[in-house]
Every structure is written in C-alpha cells, then in structure tokens.
C-alpha cells in the first residue's frame, strides 16, 4: 500500500508513490436505521487531491455516509472500492490502515499531552516500548513543514487555540499517511483569519495528493475551497457537480428542493422605548464600561472578531459572570440580576452559543428540556407537575417552531443540529421573554433551519421582544440586525444603524483600535 514500498516512514517518498494511485469509489451505499432509510443507494467517487464538498440539510445523511466511510458504521448494502479493489471494513482502525480518517467537530486530542505526542499518538516511535522522544518531535516537525506551519511541538495541546488544535488534528491525520481526510464542519469554531489559514493547509494537502471530503454548512467556503460538490437530501444523492458549473442559488435549490428567496426576513418592525439597558458595565480584564440599550421590537447585533468580550458581555448581563461595576435596567428599573435565575425572573431568555454544552441537556427528552425554565410559572400546581398542562405547553411550542421529532419524549441527543437549536429556542420562548439574548443562533445548522430561526426571531420582535444577538457571521449580523454595535478588546468601538453597515465598515471598526497588522501577523505566526 505505498507505505511498504518506501521501506521506512519517509513522508515525501510515500506521497510521491501515492500520486500514481487511483481513487476512491463508494457504490450504491445504503444504510437503514429502525424506521428510516438514512442512505439510499449513494454513489460518490473521489479523485486524488480533490476537495469534495458534501452538503445537505441536517438529517440529509452526510454524517451517516462519512461514518460508513471512516468505518464507524457498516453499510447494509453497497461497496467501497479503493485503488480498484473492493474493501470490506467496519472499524475506524481498519479505515485508518487503509488511509481513510476523519476529523470530527469535536476533536479527539489529549489536552494534557504535548503537540508532538498528540500528533504521533497511536504510532509513537519506540524501541521495546520505550518512546524515542527525539524521533517523536522530529517526525512532528516533518509534518508541520509539509503543512507549512510553525507550531511549538513541545507545547501542551490544552493551551492551544481552537484553530491551532485543528492544525494538530490535521497533522495527526497526515502523520498517519492518510490519503483521504474527512473534515466535518472544520470551520465551525474558527475566526475568519483562522479559516483562511486552514484553507492554505487544505491547498497544501491537495498538492500532496491527499483527497478531502469537506462538510460545511457555509456555502461561501465551499465555493472557495472545493473542486466538486455533492448534495444529499433525505438520504439520497441529489447530484454531484463540478464547483465551476454551479452557483450558490443552484446548490441551495438542490439542498432544500425549493428556492430560498428571502434569505433574511424583512426588517419591518419599529423599535421603541427601552426594554433593557446596560449601564457602565465592567468586568475585570474583560469588559470596560459598556453602555447599551435594547429597544422593544428591535434586534441589536453585536459584531466583532471572535473573543473580544462578546461572550463575557452576555454572561455578565444575565449575571453568570460577576460584574465589577454596572447595572442592568429593565424598563427603567434596576433589575438586580445576579444569576441566571434572576434573569429568567426579569423576563430575559438566554440562548448560549454552545447548545450542546450550555443550552441543552442532551441525555434528557425534548419535553423536559422545553419545560425546564417554565416549570415554576407555567407547569406546576404547588410543587406537582401538571402533566396535562405540560403536554399542551410543550406541544404548542413544538408545533410553533416546527420541530421535527418522533415524540416529545425523544432524547435531544438524537436530534439534528437544527432541531436541537429549535428546542433551545422553544425552551426560551416558553418563558415568554421580553428580552432575548442570543449568541450564535445558527452556528452549524442547515440553511433551511437557519432561515426558519431567523424568521422566528423577527416574529418575536413583531410581538415587541427586544433581541440582543451576538454573531461571528457577518452576513447574519447584516441580514438580521436593526442596529449594530461592534466590540473590540472588551469595548464597544462603534454603533450604527443597519442602513449604514457593511462588512467593510464593521471589519474596519473591529480592527481599528487594535493595530490590524499585529492581529493577522500574530495569528499567522503563532499557528
């Protein structure tokens, strides 16, 4: 398999030998789960050095397909051919031995080990079980050189940024001499600069004849990096196109089977009065005298580079981070919010950016998740849960948000990302909030659900809810906000009505106070 021809693990030799090799073919892959056909006779092929994007709404079958390719699942029917040979495997280890590996959204890194140890994990050079530390670092350096990155191999992985960890994952894949790397939403947690850096790495991989299956909800990225795009819908392959042959609208049409005309809902609400006012809010080392006001019926967008205090701001408002100074006023009165419980009592709902970690209880049911913040006010009699009330309450919200589930007792863990996010939204709509604080409302979810959530947010403002929305996606900020504030280094550096906003204006404001060169240079060299 190439590797043997080279004798030792010399990467360049291995890669040259790979150039001659043929490609991967998945033929008529079918997979059934109880009650659903997750994949229906999917055939996809992959060339050497090709970036093949896989798109589709949540639940379209992308995850199942890559799990079959990476050996986590076994297909019920269909064949996988590699180099003109039929391969039968059903474990990730076997897939790795064939040169197929996946980088999932959740990294499989050991935070307490060094960069080099992580890269070489599972194939540590050793003699009689004693690790050759020098060799570990040398081989890691080799991989980093190939990738053109400069990262300290001795540093602890736990101390790296998400982007750097992503690089370590990729290096790990490369050190295993993988020829097919599956990347599942690799940019979900990256900043724009880091995304550009990742793309450079992907291009470097292409030059080394590594093929990449790239899964992303961000269509812009796909047009930037992919050669080919395959669209899945309801477990079927809608089509495979060369990226030059299609445009964005056509891909969306293939994905959702209809045209998504009004991507963002019209900004037709009138903002008036003040529902929430933040006065002189400071948090040590994180936020410096923040003043802002959310009005009834408006969406206030908070833009900025990632990690400029947006996260701290929302958590300080709901009292989950202790404020050094500063008050939160609700309808002109000091609301004295010291914890999430106070925030709920004050009619503030909070949708955190990480739905799996903070927003939901994955191992419990849809029903329980939605009911949780509303138990006291709307569901219980004395201390007893009123089952009837609970059922109507939850069913109403499920219907309102068009959450697709088999039963309200279904575990949230088993829902797609879009439906999970709708459960979070339902949960907070249930308390009938006057203020909704939303962080990254559509991160990592499909375009259909994304649009539904955007429309739902606009509907809320029509009912007079004031929304504060933090987002790292500029199109979302521009498309949704009535007013935009820009944060940099824990301060609000600009405020503008949406009519005056554009990507350029926001980026200029976001990077003005920090010497813009320093950020980019720093971010690049540290990688």
């Amino acid at each position, binding site marked *: 398999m190439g590797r043997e021809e080279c004798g030792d693990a010399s990467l360049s030799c291995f890669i040259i030998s790979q150039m001659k090799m043929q490609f991967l073919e998945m033929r008529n892959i079918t997979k059934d789960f109880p009650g659903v056909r997750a994949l229906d006779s999917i055939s996809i092929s992959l060339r050497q050095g090709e970036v093949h994007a896989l798109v589709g709404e949540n639940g379209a079958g992308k995850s199942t397909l890559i799990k079959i390719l990476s050996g986590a699942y076994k297909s019920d029917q269909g064949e996988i051919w590699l180099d003109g040979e039929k391969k039968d495997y059903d474990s990730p280890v076997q897939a790795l031995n064939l040169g197929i590996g996946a980088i999932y959204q959740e990294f499989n890194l050991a935070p307490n080990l060094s960069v080099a140890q992580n890269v070489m994990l599972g194939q540590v050079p050793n003699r009689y079980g004693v690790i050759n530390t020098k060799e570990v670092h040398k081989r890691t350096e080799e991989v980093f050189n190939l990738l053109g990155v400069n990262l300290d191999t001795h540093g602890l992985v736990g101390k790296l940024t998400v982007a750097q960890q992503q690089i370590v994952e990729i290096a790990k894949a490369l050190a295993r001499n993988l020829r097919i790397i599956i990347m599942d939403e690799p940019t979900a947690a990256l900043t724009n600069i880091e995304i550009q850096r990742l793309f450079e790495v992907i291009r470097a991989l292409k030059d080394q004849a590594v093929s990449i299956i790239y899964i992303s909800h961000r269509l812009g990225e796909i047009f930037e990096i992919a050669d080919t795009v395959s669209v899945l819908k309801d477990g079927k392959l809608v089509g495979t196109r060369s990226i030059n042959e299609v445009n964005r609208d056509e891909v969306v049409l293939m994905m959702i089977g209809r045209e998504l005309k009004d991507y963002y809902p019209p900004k037709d609400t009138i903002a008036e009065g003040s529902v929430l006012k933040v006065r002189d809010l400071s948090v040590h080392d994180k936020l410096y005298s923040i003043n802002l006001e959310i009005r009834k019926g408006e969406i206030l967008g908070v833009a900025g580079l990632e990690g400029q205090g947006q996260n701290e701001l929302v958590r300080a408002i709901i009292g989950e981070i202790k404020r050094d100074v500063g008050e939160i006023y609700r309808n002109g009165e000091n609301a004295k919010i010291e914890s999430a419980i106070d925030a709920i009592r004050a009619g503030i709902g909070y949708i955190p950016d990480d739905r799996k*970690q903070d927003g939901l209880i*994955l191992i*419990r049911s849809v029903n329980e998740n939605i009911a949780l913040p509303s*138990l006291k006010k709307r569901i219980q009699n004395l201390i*007893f849960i009123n*089952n009837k009330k609970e059922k109507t309450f939850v069913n109403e919200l499920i219907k309102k948000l068009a959450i697709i589930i088999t039963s309200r007792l279904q575990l949230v863990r088993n829902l797609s990302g879009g439906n999970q996010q709708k459960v979070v939204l339902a949960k907070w709509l249930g308390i009938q909030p006057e203020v909704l604080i939303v962080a990254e409302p559509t991160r990592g979810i499909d375009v259909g659900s994304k649009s539904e959530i955007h429309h739902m947010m606009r509907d809320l403002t029509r009912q007079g809810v004031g929304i504060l929305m933090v987002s790292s996606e500029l199109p979302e900020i521009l498309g949704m906000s009535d007013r935009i504030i820009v944060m940099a280094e824990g301060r609000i550096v600009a405020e503008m009505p949406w009519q005056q906003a554009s990507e350029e204006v926001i980026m200029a404001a976001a990077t003005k106070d920090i010497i813009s060169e320093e950020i980019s240079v720093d971010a690049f060299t540290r990688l």
Partner: protein
Amino acid sequence: MNDTTITAEKQSQSRSLKSIFRHIRPVFYALFLLCTIGIITQPNFLTIRNLRNIILSTTPWAIATIGQSLTLLTAGIDLSIGPVVSLTNTVAAFLMKDYPEYALGISFLCIALGLLVGLINGLVIAYLRLNPFLFTLASGIVIQGLTLGIMYQPGGIVTPEFLKISRVSIGVFPLAIFYILVLYAIGSFILKRTSFGLSIYAVGGNQYSARLSGIRIERVLIAVYTISGFTAALAGLFIASRIGSGDPIVGEPISLDTLTAAVLGGTSLFGGIGDLWGGLAGAFFIGTLSTTLNLNNVSPFYQWIVKGFILIAAMAIDLWRHAGNNEIT
C-alpha cells in the same frame, strides 16, 4: 395478501417484540435468573421462611438505595451511607439500653443525625464544590470513627416495641415490604411528578445548562444528599430493630452495595439517567444472591468476590446500554 406483505408484517412484529425486550432492563432478567437458580439448587428457596428472610435482609439495602440512586442521578455519589447506617444503628441500641422509655425520641434523634450528615454533605458539595466521591468518603470515615468511639463492639439493646418494627407481619407478608413500597412510591412520585424531581435529572444531565435554565442547583444537591442521609438513617434503624442490638460496623458493605444495586438497576454513574424501581430490583438481586449463597454455604469471602464482579458487570452494562442508545440517530 402476497408474500412480501407477510414478511413485512412478521418483521414489524419481531421488531416490536425486540423493542419490548430492549426496554426491560437487564436487572429484571438477572433477578429472574437468580431466582430460578435458587429454586433449582435449594428446595428451601420457595419456602415462606426463606422468602421472608430475603425480604427482611434486603429491606435496609433497598431503603438506602433510594438515597444512593438520587445522588447518582445528580451525577454525584454518597459513600457515607454505610457509616450513617452504622452510626444510627449504634446510637439507637446504645441509648435505648439506658433510656428504653425514650425509644421514640431516640429514633427521631437517629433520623435527625442522618439528616444532619446528609445536610453537611450537601452543603459542602453544593457550595464548596468538593468532589462528592472524595468528600462523602471522607465524611464517612469520620462518622465511622465517631461510631466506634460510641461503642467499640457490638452491644446495646433495643426495646421490645422497637423490635416489632421489623417483625410485625400482615398475614404472611412482613410489614417491611410495605415500608419499601411506600418509600419507593413516594420517592418515585417526587422524582417523576414534581419539578424537584425533574431538576434532579436536569442537574445530573448537565449542571451548567440546568443552572442557565433557572434551576437552583445548590438546593437540589443539598436536598438530594439530605434525603440520602435520611434513608440511610431509616436503614440503620431497621437493622437495629432486626438484630435487636447495635453493631458499629454493620453498615460497612452498604455504601457499595447500594451503589451496585442502583447501577445494576439502570441508574447511570454519569448522572441524569435512571429511576428508583430499577434500584429496588438491584437491591433485591443482591439480597437474594446473598441469601442464596448463604443457603448454599458459600463462604463470605467468596461472596465479596461475587459482589465485586457484579459491580464490574453492572458498570459494563451501564456503558454498553448508553453506547447502544447512541446508535439510533
């Protein structure tokens, strides 16, 4: 009807049967299997005397398992249960010997002691955020020391009225079975039908998310450990009534046995999944096993080995079951 529809129907039938079997927890099969083995190996197994014996010896385990299950559901654990059982058992026998006229007051004192230990456990775990495993282990050691300080050897005696708690029967049923049923019914009702119960699951499922949803997680934790102290105290008193005297190390195996019972019954060690009835079946499994092994004259140290392996098996089943659930996406 053609062939394909028939096969399709057959398939759906077998699938639903399969799903029914999937829903019955392994512990019930295990209990069934164990009883079968007992009946086959021991002609005495089905005698009323033996069954009463199983119920009476399982009762304290079963009662204390309520508390253990609740702490496990919050992703915690209570290793002070055993020492609290010893403490309350010892204090009851120690005081009743000298003050038989205050038997009722002494019983309440013992319950108060259990509540107090649980409250302290809860306060420390909720507010100081100490690891429940280590803290309850440590507080358990302290309590064990105190208990040995009160009475170094088995001794003391309980009043004849107090003895009746464990010895009264209704027909052939010992009253103990009703204690168990009532406590489990109340516990299950709280767990399933009150917002406090739902909060327990939420805290165990994802503590931070529960907090953001407006759950007062500190209160939930304190309540759960206090309940655990309470059920441990009841178990200690029951043992005092059953053996008629005090034994400062009688509760030693109970911390781990309740853990095994709860996990065997399907309560996850990682919190957020499980219920009480499974733990009850688990407790009866252990109780029946001990009795059966005793009937077969298996030496106590083999029993320890068997129990250890059962705990390992229970944990393995726990992991396997949850991995299995992942498949259905």
